[in-house]
């Protein structure tokens, strides 16, 4: 009983986390704008943030929901192209910049990102509805196929439409590079917050129950199809947002960067970190994104290493490095307060708790 008691009230818990996150953002941002962190390194930090969003969102579908979507890169591509096209047309409209000043990006970029996320979510809904109605691995196959088809469509859609939209194999170029550290990590925060609170809510509990036992969940009156689709669509939505951030980070989009390899890379992050652990996803996304940049020899062999990691982790430690453990700062504070208040509270109550 006592161990689960929350000594810090709920609003305060959110406040503590929000203040700490804001402090982190402020410190890092002033380091970057102040020039203490080079442009090259801040680019890597942004791509770490993007990987975190991707891994956390895939963790929602794989770790919490127990499904295996293999087309996460496809949803990322959808978001990337959607937001890139919006940003390009916004940049092309000359009036905007004079009306809103140079900071027009600050107004348009979040909207473009959300549009990208919505585009991904829409397609996830279209795929999820037929596949998630059934038990089994149909979602894996469909999303795997979908990821490939998105690539083919992006390559060939110009021939069908008759005008330039995605530029085919040459790719979209001169996308305004509006992704900054601040934008990326604000969205990282939003992603983690939304998925965390969702998993703590009634809907999240329903999603977890489906992972544990679908038949039992259904017999408890949980609409499994609805919740599976919900989890999958939310996961795709954030993948779309990550795609938009990616587009703004690199400035050039090419269909070949959203292949099956990318989907597997994200899956490795989730599996290695521990399916069902947000902290695990964040950590392994950070490490696996930074490592190829720091170690060139690792970058060459990384695909072989990734596939070995998948197999070895599954055979020897299927829960991943973190398992389902999630760090909670306030939980730690609770324990500390309990300790500081002294054991006397516990002594008075006597044995049953211990």
């Amino acid at each position, binding site marked *: 009983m006592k161990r689960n008691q929350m000594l810090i009230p709920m609003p305060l818990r959110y406040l503590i986390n929000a203040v700490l996150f804001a402090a982190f953002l402020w410190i890092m941002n002033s380091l970057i704008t102040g020039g203490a962190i080079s442009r090259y390194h801040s680019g890597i930090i942004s791509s770490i943030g993007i990987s975190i969003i991707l891994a956390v969102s895939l963790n929602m579908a*794989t770790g919490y929901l*127990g499904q*295996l979507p*293999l087309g996460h890169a496809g949803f990322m591509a959808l978001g990337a192209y959607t937001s890139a096209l919006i940003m390009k047309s916004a940049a092309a409209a000359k009036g905007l910049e004079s009306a809103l000043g140079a900071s027009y990006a600050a107004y348009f970029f979040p909207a473009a990102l959300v549009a990208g996320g919505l585009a991904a979510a829409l397609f996830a809904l279209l*795929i999820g509805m*037929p*596949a998630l*109605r*059934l*038990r*089994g*691995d*149909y979602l*894996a*196959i*469909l999303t*795997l*196929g*979908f990821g*490939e*088809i998105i690539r*083919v*469509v992006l390559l*060939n859609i110009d021939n069908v439409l008759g005008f330039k939209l995605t530029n085919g194999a040459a790719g979209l170029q001169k996308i305004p590079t509006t992704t900054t550290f601040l934008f990326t990590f604000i969205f990282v925060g939003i992603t983690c917050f939304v998925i965390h609170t969702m998993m703590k809510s009634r809907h999240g509990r329903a999603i977890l129950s489906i992972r544990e036992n679908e*038949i039992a969940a259904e*017999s408890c009156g949980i609409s499994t199809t609805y919740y599976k689709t919900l989890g999958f669509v939310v996961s795709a939505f954030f993948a779309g947002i990550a795609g938009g951030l990616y587009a703004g980070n690199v400035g050039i989009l090419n269909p070949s960067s959203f292949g*099956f390899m990318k989907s*597997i890379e994200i*899956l490795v992050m989730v*599996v290695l970190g521990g*399916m069902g652990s947000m902290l695990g996803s964040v950590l392994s996304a950070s490490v696996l994104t930074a490592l190829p940049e720091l170690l060139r020899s690792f970058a060459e*062999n990384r*695909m*072989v290493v*990734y*596939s*070995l*990691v*998948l*197999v070895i982790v*599954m*055979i020897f430690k*299927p829960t991943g490095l973190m398992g389902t453990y999630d760090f909670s700062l306030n939980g730690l504070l609770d324990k500390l307060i309990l300790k500081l208040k002294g054991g006397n509270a516990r002594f008075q109550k006597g044995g049953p708790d211990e």
Partner: protein
Amino acid sequence: MSLVISQLINGLQSGSIYALVALGYSMVYGIIMLLNFAHGDIIMVGAYAAWFVMVRLSLNPVLAIILAILACTVLGVVIEKVAYTPLRSSPRLSLLITAIGISFLLENLAQRVFGAGAQKVPALISGPAIEIGGQRFSFIAMVTIVVSVVSMALLTFLVRKTKMGKAMRAVSEDMGTAQLMGINVNLTISFTFAVGSALAGIGSILYSCAYPQASPTMGAMLGLKAFVAAVLGGIGSIPGAMLGGFCIGLAEAIVSAVGLSVWKDGVVFAILIVVLVVKPTGILGRAIREKV
């Protein structure tokens, strides 16, 4: 008219390859409920084995065919023993992720060893075109169709009439009960993988006759389409896999004939979506009631 027939034959040819691969998926799925993603890559290994034997060792095609099929069979059993057996009691998701990992590992190892480019596989089977009623049919297409139909018939015989086939059916019905009845479950599952992989080996030979090159990623799409064929025909059903394979092959041939060959992958997955919406058990599949 002759164009229609030749497109039909093309469709049947690629359809029979899909059917052979689909059988492997279907058998493995039927017995341990695993979507064996590595199955497509076994085909890739088969094609490389044939290429290696013929080009590097410069042996004759018959030996290449036998060694390629043998390589596939051994690889299939090794994968099952190393990667899938330790996970038999773990959740489905772990098994699926392992299968993805193995598939990815094979692709990347092939890329590191043989290079990312395609290798040209010399002709394994050759013969004069056959003329029936004024219509010329390519020899390879005929061989492909005949070989796959014969393999299918042999497999049906194996599953229906032999003792091992009976064991396979029993294990796929209920693994625990089968074990209680004195069936060696491990051996039966390994045998299933061996048969499925041998069929993939035959498929890889026929595939490299039709498209004479080996590349690290050739198996991925082929495997996926074969899985769609297995689902379309009804997973777990041998005639279903054949029917599904022919349907997918013909659909692709029709799409290519209309001039939309770029979109043929899309059409295959559209078929999968339609099947999942309309009849998830497939054409010849039977609904499996889930016991609680």
